[in-house]
């Protein structure tokens, strides 16, 4: 499953358990306007760490707090690219 699809699926599951309805999950959607509060976003980051195996917020030296869903997805995609480059160098 692509990172984008994994993120979208996890968001939908969290919204479902919290009984929140979501607006269309477009790239320019402001995360905090999505119906998910910061607790839900924290849960999302924790679940993604389980499914993807990494958490770019704690791995990255660049401090970054994403504003839109697109920012959030790109943050994960870039972190995944950096990881595969690093592991490629290591082997």
């Amino acid at each position, binding site marked *: 499953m692509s990172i984008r699809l994994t993120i979208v699926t996890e968001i939908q599951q969290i919204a479902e*358990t*919290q009984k929140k309805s979501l607006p269309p999950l477009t790239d320019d959607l*402001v*995360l*905090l*306007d999505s119906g998910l*509060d*910061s*607790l839900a*976003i*924290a*849960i999302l*980051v*924790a*679940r993604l760490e*389980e499914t993807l195996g990494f*958490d770019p*917020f*704690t791995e990255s030296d660049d*401090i*970054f*707090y*994403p*504003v839109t869903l697109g920012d959030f997805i790109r943050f994960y995609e870039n972190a995944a690219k950096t990881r595969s480059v690093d592991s490629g160098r290591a082997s």
Partner: protein
Amino acid sequence: MALGELVQGTGFGGRLVELAGRSVLVATRDQLTAALALIELDGVARRFVICPPDLASEHLPSVIARAGVDAIVSDNDPDHPGGLDVPLRVRCTVAIKPAEAPPIERHQTEWVLLTSGTTGAPKLLVHTLATLTGAIGGGPHQGPDVVWGTFYDIRRYGGLQIFLRAVLGSGSFVLSSATESAGDYLLRLGAHGVTHLSGTPSHWRRALMSPSARVISPRYVRMSGEIADQAILNALHECYPQASIGHAFASTEAGVGFEVTDGLEGFPASMIGRRGDVDMKVEEGSLRIRSTRNAVRYLGEDDQVLAAADGFVDTGDMVERRGDRYYFLGRRSGLINIGGLKVYPEEIEAVINRHPAVRMSVVRSKRSPITGSLVAADVVLKVPGGEQGHSSGSDQTEDVKREILQLCHEHLAAHKVPATIRFVQALDVAAAGKLARNRA
């Protein structure tokens, strides 16, 4: 001076005199009404108990009994909160009417604040105006050009500190509203030219995730209530380069300990053992504080001792010295701090253990880059499943996970519901027969 002398009118419609000398529960829905009630009641009531907005109604009878409450102040609905045996109910409104200050005998009012307890029932802590304002005075944070804001509710210690700073420093104060988003509050703060803004690190992370983060340009940014890590300190400095950025150590029990303004996480080791208004020491790994800002005592809990014989309050916050600085490690007790809201694991474990398939569980703190910590649960099932990789077994485990989450959602506030549930074969049990809890 009592705060009551600040108001040249009343929101009590002539009934303030009835509250003189009483133990008053301030249970308003609205933050502004609570603010007004506190100002008027200080010096008039013998004691008041400040109800935080999310206090579960099931805890009210025990709070009322322990604090000897004999009057309730509420706002819109005169019967809210209902079903309580209290002789006097008085309504307070924000529509202040001019009134002569009634001739009321002045009291040294006890300010009672609530904080989380092991079983979910809150602990009551007695403060006075003097203990609450010990850290406030002089400096660049006072004056008519200062506009305060806080992401906290003022009915918690962190928010109350800001409220008192604004009231006593003759500045302005922009209150948040429970019904508005972080973005909308930031827009209002921007419109009112906020200069001083406080919140937990989690509040600030949320603010930085808002498109409105840059509509404000505060001169002073303050964090408290949680560990401020280097990431949030750097991010705030980058977003508000003109601001002085401080992180304070404060708790309802120990009061305001100190503030660090050098932009680095942790605090200088030179602060330990220095004599002054606030004495600090580290014993058995935890930070201990003795000062005139400590709470006075616990209320209605005979077995709970706030300060040791030498006057030091054990904060329960574990610290470690590395070089010339101390760093916070987390809590000794297992207490989990989720964005400033605190919860003991026992309360959550009790709910998880109600599920018929669960043998035992341990709830621990999991680090979160967004809310500081999250709740994570390790669960042992009566019939182990899922680990064998058998597909139907795995499906059953998923069902149990969903049911446990459902159970938690029904019985616990949202921040107490585990973010992750892991099924394990066994849990560590310490020598005394208690579950081994990780140090945060």
